[in-house]
């Protein structure tokens, strides 16, 4: 089966489509729809010159908790209570870092309104990390942290946040769900000690449901 249009791959023309976004992270540089942001320290952002390695963010090296990310500069078009995202990401550095991808409520250093996949070297397993305006919750998956590319899906509804890894539902959270509009975000952060830490992303797609 072939479709007449990209539109009709996702919706019939009788439906008014909601907002939808994707990025392949292929090209000479990051597409200008993203903002490169150094929340702490000075990171390095670059398209990787290697097969299937997408886009890379390496944190600054000067201090602990240096973090850099890409986001939509507070153009928060994603619904906190009716949206989904799919991403393909991997942590590159083996120690003392967090690699995360998902949705942020704000572009500041530590947004509490959040729903992300997190691969953190100090954890045993990969987690779903979500929060409302005041509190956050971390829910373990059964997948051990690693440096392999992982297919992540996060689904937000008014009653839950669910994380599926490699096609299997791995974590469900029903507390501290985000309660305001969101934006896509992908972040590298060093923890425990100073040093440049790297995370890569090959695909990101988000849409309202």
């Amino acid at each position, binding site marked *: 089966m072939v479709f007449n249009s990209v*539109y009709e791959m996702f*919706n019939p023309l009788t*439906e*008014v*489509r909601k*907002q939808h*976004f994707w990025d392949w992270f292929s090209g000479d540089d990051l597409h200008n729809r993203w903002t490169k942001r150094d929340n702490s320290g000075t990171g390095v952002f670059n398209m990787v010159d290697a097969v299937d390695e997408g886009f890379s963010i390496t944190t600054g090296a000067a201090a602990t908790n240096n973090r850099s990310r890409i986001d939509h500069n507070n*153009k928060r078009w994603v619904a906190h209570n009716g949206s989904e995202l799919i991403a393909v990401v991997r942590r590159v550095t083996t120690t003392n870092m967090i690699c995360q991808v998902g949705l942020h409520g704000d572009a500041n250093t530590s947004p509490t309104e959040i729903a992300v996949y997190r691969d953190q070297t100090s954890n045993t397993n990969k987690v779903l990390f979500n929060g409302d305006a005041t509190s956050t919750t971390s829910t373990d998956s059964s997948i051990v942290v690693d440096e392999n590319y992982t297919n992540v899906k996060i689904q937000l509804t008014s009653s839950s946040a669910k994380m599926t890894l490699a096609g299997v539902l791995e974590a469900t959270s029903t507390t501290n769900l985000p309660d305001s509009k969101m934006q896509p975000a992908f972040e590298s952060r060093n923890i425990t000690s100073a040093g440049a830490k790297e995370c890569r992303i090959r695909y990101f797609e988000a849409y309202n449901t």
Partner: protein
Amino acid sequence: MPATSASLYEQLFPLTTVMKQRFVDNFSGDALDTDRWTHSDLTGTGSSGISDAVDGGGFVKSGGGSADASQMAFNGVGQYAYNASVCIGVTKTATTTSFSRFGFTSNGTTATNLNIADFENNSSDTYTSLRSGDASTTSVINSTTAQHVNWTAIKLELTASNIVLYEEGVSTATKTTNLPVASLEPILRIESASVATVKEISVRYMECYNT
């Protein structure tokens, strides 16, 4: 479960088909893709950009004058065939006392009404409408849809003999006169119809392709 394929290309065509020109914009991100879109002020000083709102998409706003008008298009790069193309979008006229246009033009940096094909939503009309112009004359016909300020899915289908307007999958107007005769580029325009306030057209999706 829909069929999957190894490529986006093969969701649209078999590999035996040579794809013609196509573009898709989801209007999601930190800013408008200004590598693609060029904003033009026809009267007054307006703006184009991305909205900070759930499902808000992109926008073109007029200046605050009662006759101000602004648009965004492809800066005169006409890649779409006047006699064999399609344009699909999700758009809304976000303000009353305004006049919005979604579709094709032959010159995206001017206010030309010649060699055009667009969906119009004029708050002073009873119905939405389909407008087209050839090299010398422009004309308009009503659709069967009452004028509104809601998000709507639009499809314009241009052939050598007519232009068909679809609103949310239903054919609401067919036009056979004053069809464009020059290559076309996508356009979104907002004009103030009266009342000196900023007027806005919003767009959440746009896809155009040659057939």
